[in-house]
């Protein structure tokens, strides 16, 4: 079986890997690069637990082939904090208990960060629709939405 050689950047670091043509970006992150922050909840792009950004665009890594990462810049939940300094979203999610089991949290953080980079002052409706691709079964979304809105307000004030 011939594998494909891929060179890409993950969270700013250059990486190389060999992958089966059938392997998804999520498989590669989890099984080859040991980045298990992105989760597989469905494998069909419905739950968003595997959300990453590719050249700044939010994608479900289970719907992208590993081979497609060639020359791209991938960002995952593991790259959100800057050293020991957490991103304001991470701090706020802990403070608001915007997570219960935490399996959806990596995907939601990646998606919410991507939203705030595009829209620093989102309405509740915008946050709800932006995160509509990220399933959470525990929280009923209430505390998640509040955490994102409040982080946005703090970040606007700080900037």
């Amino acid at each position: 079986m011939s594998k494909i050689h891929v060179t890409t950047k993950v969270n700013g670091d250059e990486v190389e890997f060999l992958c089966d043509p059938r392997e998804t970006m999520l498989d590669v992150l989890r099984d080859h690069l040991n980045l298990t922050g992105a989760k597989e909840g469905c494998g069909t792009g419905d739950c968003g637990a595997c959300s990453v950004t590719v050249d700044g665009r939010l994608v479900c890594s289970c719907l992208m082939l590993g081979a497609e990462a060639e020359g791209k810049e991938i960002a995952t939940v593991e790259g959100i904090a800057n050293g020991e300094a957490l991103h304001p979203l991470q701090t706020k999610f802990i403070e608001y208990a915007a997570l219960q089991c935490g399996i959806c949290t990596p995907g939601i953080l990646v998606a919410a960060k991507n939203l705030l980079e595009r829209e620093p002052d989102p309405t509740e409706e915008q946050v709800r629709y932006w995160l509509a691709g990220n399933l959470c079964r525990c929280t009923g979304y209430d505390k998640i939405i509040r955490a994102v809105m409040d982080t946005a307000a703090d970040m606007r004030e700080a900037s």
Partner: protein
Amino acid sequence: MALDKPGEDYEGRTSYTHVGTRVDRPDGLDKVTGRAKFGADAHAPGMLHGAIVRSPHAHAKILKIDTSKAEALAGVKAVVTRADFATGLEGEEWNVLENVMASDTALYDGHALAAIAATSSLIARDAVKLVEVEYELLPHVTDVDEAMKPDAPVIRAGQQSKLVPEGMHPNVVNYYEGGHGDMDAGFAEADLVIERHFTTEAAHQGYIEPHAALATLGADGKGELWCCTQGHFIVQKTCAALVGIDTSQLRVTASEIGGGFGGKTTVFLEPLALALSRKSNRPVKMVMSRSEILRATGPTSSASMDIKIGMTKDGRITAGKGVFRLQGGAFPDAPAGMAAECSFAPYNLNAVSIEGYEVMANRPKQAAYRAPGSPMAAFAVESVVDELCKALELDPIETRLKNASREGTKAAYGPTWDRIGLVECLEAAQAHPHMQAPLRESEGRGVAAGFWFNHGGETSVSLALSEDGTAQISVGTPDIGGSRASMALMAAEILGIEYENIRVTVADTATLGYNDVSHGSRVTYASGLATINAAKDAVGKLCDRAAQRWGIDPEAVIWEDGCAKPAGPNAGQFDPMPLKEITQRMGRTGGPISGHFEATPEGAGVSFGVHIVDAHVDRETGKTSIDRYTVIQDAGKAVHPTYVEGQFQGGAAQGIGWALNEEYVYGEDGRLQNTVFLDYRIPVASDLPMIDTVIVEVPNPGHPFGVRGVGETGICPPLAAIANAVSGAVGVRMTSLPMSPPKILKALKEQ
């Protein structure tokens, strides 16, 4: 734990230092940075990957399984079938084995027939396609009412309990009948009697994390298992039996768990991974796909129910009758008796009759789901109560208050209620601004109550003090809702040290005595009670050390604010001795200080809730939208109020999904039609409004701090509350869940 008097455990405190504060969770940092280790996140050197061969047929005799082509595929290391598991099992263990690996008959679409381990998951999946199975198709049935009909195919003869009335179909495997009073007289007294038939479809627990396991088992009968589960001790006991080894030789470690809601209280792929590991002599990891989860793990029961309730003009319920038929898949144990017992729990009735039928069908074995049996029963009963209120022009909350169960009234399932908080919840609903807020045009408001028993269960907790005056606690109940924080808060309250100085670990099965599953809303109650008592055990030893040093009687020492103190002036004049001062010397004054508690506490205390919902219906599309939602529930005492709110909100959201979207759709061929999240649609962020919460605190006399479980009751009221709101909005009474747009459009057309 034997209590001489109910309530002797309750301390009656009025103020707390730690309990009731909103501290950060200890697993927070790991979970926001992606490093928390869930079921599928484990790796082992030399690990193989497993995959499962499943039946595409709803009901078929298995004539032959030919695995030779699969075994010949390069990279395949082991194949197991039923022959690789224990024989001679009985009862529930046999049922569980039959469910995770069929013997001679495939009983539902997705039933496991064989499992394969290979050097990669791609190879394992390729190998699955090479397994050739010869079937003889059998007639199937997936609907609960159809499965009870005389001509329905028999799923498994000989399963019927003798409680089942004579002449019923063999698919009816158990029967419950209860109640009290004169039903005829009760209905005769009523000014209005309404009788309705209701159905609800199976809903899946819908945890986002797939089942996952990493297993090692050798020919020496020693095994290691890592898996996501609500209870690793039951996994240990069950898996050991299924693969035929001693319980104590299998060590099970619970991973972080990505949601369970009842669905991870049993085993599915764990015993298969163990059997594959034994055969290949390599560690084996298995992870389910979403379609495997939907097809072959437990959804809740589907139900068919008949309700008849009589009411006087002034709103007194004179009699209530309920018949509940619950389909539990191709196995016994559907929670029909629970449905019957929970159904009329909110009402004080002179005449009540409740019946429950457990029915088998060609579907996966139902698994527990948040308050098993109660939500569908509440949907049926609370819908009829609402219809009576509307017809008699009565206020829904006033009417519920007039008939409410309270301390000293008789429950429909028999006993006299202890201290319960239903009246307080109804009064809080009545006083809530939501009830006074004006409705928009075409909007309806629904109210419904719900009930769940709550559970105690076997519990074992260990607490060890460190030299620096901090504490570590081992619990055996996986943390599914923030329980590590709650345990630390309760221990901090007793020890008198800071929350941050306590670390709580979910210990593996080799470290601690048996613990029941994290289910039945039991963890904050039972593990909490055990943590408090383990801390008290340690405090007793700390007081002993202080007494020793002061040369006084241990009885003359009390523990206050984290210090040993003389009990009074007669005990002697000594400065308070802080915990840290004692632990620093503990190695030289008698050895390490630990506290333990093991028991089966039985004072869980039941829980009631009341939900208020505003909804509107789009008459063109039939889509129902939730505009405002309020959950009011008795928590006894909220140890961490934010997590209590989270349980209320999560329960409500799941109930909303069950009410409006979620259902198992079986085709004529008996195959599940909606096996991905796109088609099995759980609520997304844009479907829901903010969910307001009110925490009512009517202390549970069975817990030192008055805690009642809060995890399950929240899913009981939403189904009816939303149906009642829809009825208010567009005047149609929806009696079949989900209230999906096509069903609502049809009802509107027939209006």
